[in-house]
Structures are given as structure tokens and as C-alpha cells.
């Protein structure tokens, strides 16, 4: 269910804290301020003098309509739940976001989803981004394990499934660019030496994130790349599709 944040933005673009007030019921025990900080950390805009123009351009590109259309297809494909989807402009001045992610980002929960979009993103990029994020929603719905109980292995498989879904629907050219950082041999080696000893690390731990993102000294995007490698290996061996694996226990991908 798309939320018409385009209307919110026309009224309250300059006051993101007011805008985040409307999200307060969706987060347990978080203040408006904490929600906004958290969303900015994941790519949401910070008010800018040219920002309203950015919103106007996103509207002109029919972003909200494209997402509605794509969501319907994905919901049918994966028997997915109807959750609120919020679209906001992305942080146009964040150099890392621009260089590494072409200005797009997202954040998915079992019961809500956020997309942060730049005016430079193509329609297909937005469809691929929604596919990735909505796949997380479906994995979290169909695989009966609460997010609070997630360990690194669960995150690797969840991320691997999401990019595999992008590959299935749109092909290699719409995968995140870090998927081409390493060869299969390198990934196998990285999995054995740098990732597999830590698969039981809890999601709440700093080590979990450092392995996932490859910070500070590990190979870049280590966990994302290894997760995709593990899921792709399993899909090829089992001749299965992402849709068939949404409830597959994470441990099965290691057999």
C-alpha cells in the first residue's frame, strides 16, 4: 500500500521532523527525532534549498505510480503482505550514496518499507530497488524467525535472496554493482576464512555489521557479496527460484 508521501512532502518538505511524526506509531518506543536520524542514516534527504524541485521532478517521473504497479506484481509473485510503502527523496549531497549507490537506498521491515530515491534513477532502477526491499518483507513474513533473533547467517541469506530476486526479474545489469567485485574463487575463499566462523553472530552486534559491510578492514560489502554467492550456488544446485525459497531455513543453504 503506497503512502502518498508526495502530498506530505509538498506541505512539510522543510520540516522532516513533522513529517516523521506521522511514522511514530510504526516504531516501538522511538521518538520522532530518532526515527528521522535513523532514516537519514539509511539515505533519506536532509532539507535543501532546491529540494522542492527534487520532489516536483520525482512526481513528474511518476515514481509513486511505478511503485504501486510493481508492488502489485511482487505481491502476487511471492504471496506477499500488503504493507505501507513510504517514498522520500534521497540525500542529494551524500557523496558515498551518490558514488556507490547511484543515489538510491531503502530500508525494509516485516511491516513497512522505505525507499529513498534520486531524480537520476531510472524507472528500471526503481523497480529493481523495490524488488530487493520487498523481497526482504516477504522473507521476513514467510520464514518464521523474528528479526530480533537473526544472526549473521540469516542476514546473509536474506540479502542473497533479495539480489537473486533482482537477477531473476531484471537480469545481471540491474544487480548492485558490488556483486561484480569478486570472482567465485575469491568469494569461496572469503566465505571460508572471513565469514563462516562468524555466522552465529547476533544481528545486534557490531561484528555483524562490520562483516556485512566489510568495515573497517575487510573486503568491501563482504557479507552482501558472500550472501549472494551462497544463495546463487544453492539455486543452481537445486534448480529452484527465489519464490520457492522464501521459507527455506537459512541453515539449508549451507548443505
Amino acid at each position, binding site marked *: 500500500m503506497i503512502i502518498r508521501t508526495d502530498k506530505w512532502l509538498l506541505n512539510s518538505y522543510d520540516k522532516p521532523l513533522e513529517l516523521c511524526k506521522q511514522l511514530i506509531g510504526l516504531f516501538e518506543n*522511538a521518538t520522532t527525532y530518532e526515527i528521522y536520524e535513523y532514516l537519514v*542514516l539509511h539515505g533519506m534527504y536532509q532539507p535543501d534549498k532546491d529540494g522542492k524541485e527534487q520532489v516536483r521532478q520525482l512526481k513528474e517521473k511518476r515514481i509513486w505510480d511505478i511503485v504501486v504497479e510493481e508492488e502489485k506484481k511482487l505481491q502476487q509473485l511471492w504471496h506477499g503482505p500488503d504493507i505501507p510503502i513510504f517514498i522520500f527523496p534521497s540525500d542529494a549531497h551524500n*557523496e*558515498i550514496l551518490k558514488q556507490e549507490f547511484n543515489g538510491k*537506498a531503502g530500508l525494509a521491515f516485516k511491516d513497512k518499507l522505505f525507499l529513498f530515491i534520486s531524480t537520476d534513477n531510472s524507472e528500471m532502477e526503481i523497480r529493481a530497488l523495490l524488488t530487493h526491499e520487498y523481497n526482504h518483507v516477504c522473507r521476513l513474513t514467510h520464514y518464521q524467525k523474528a528479526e530480533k533473533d537473526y544472526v549473521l547467517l540469516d*542476514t546473509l541469506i536474506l540479502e542473497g535472496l533479495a539480489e537473486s530476486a533482482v537477477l531473476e526479474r531484471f537480469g545481471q545489469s540491474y544487480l548492485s554493482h558490488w556483486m561484480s567485485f569478486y570472482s567465485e574463487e575469491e568469494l569461496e575463499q572469503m566465505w571460508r576464512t572471513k565469514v563462516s566462523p562468524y555466522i552465529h553472530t547476533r544481528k545486534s552486534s557490531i561484528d555483524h555489521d562490520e562483516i556485512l559491510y566489510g568495515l573497517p578492514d575487510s573486503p568491501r560489502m563482504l557479507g552482501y557479496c558472500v550472501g549472494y554467492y551462497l544463495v546463487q550456488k544453492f539455486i543452481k544446485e537445486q534448480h529452484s527460484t527465489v519464490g520457492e525459497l522464501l521459507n527455506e531455513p537459512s541453515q539449508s543453504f549451507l548443505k
Partner: protein
Amino acid sequence: MSVQHFHAMCHKYRGRAVEIRTHDGRVHRGIIHRVTPNRVYLQPLARRRNLGGFGYGFGWGWGWGFGIAIGAIAAIGLLSLFWW
């Protein structure tokens, strides 16, 4: 005060703990570790609260790279030892 003024102050305070207020009403506290022509990067004094969820690759782990647009700064001041 102008963007140039805040830019100069960020340079001057590099390596020191500051409090930056932005026009959107937020207060950022951290140690300035990098200044670019239009952004200042803070090393947070405390780990931000994790509200969960799964991102697209950009996010929590890039927290160190989280920057504030210098054009968004309303005020900047050094933090006293009292704060940290």
C-alpha cells in the same frame, strides 16, 4: 552566518568534539574527522540507536561516513568536557 564561515569553523575544529545545530532542528554531537567543500563528517560520540530493518547496502555500517551538509548548519560550538 555564511556557508564560508561555517566551513572555516569546521576546519578550525577538526579533531575536536563539537555540537552542530542544523536548520531542520537536529543537534549533532561528535568529533570532526573530515571536512569537504560542502560537508562535515562527524565521528559520533555515542552509537546511534538501532531501530532495526534491512537496508540496501547503504546504512548503518556507513555511519562513520554520515555527513552534515555545511549549508544546513545553523550553529556550531565546541563541546565542553562536561558532555563527554
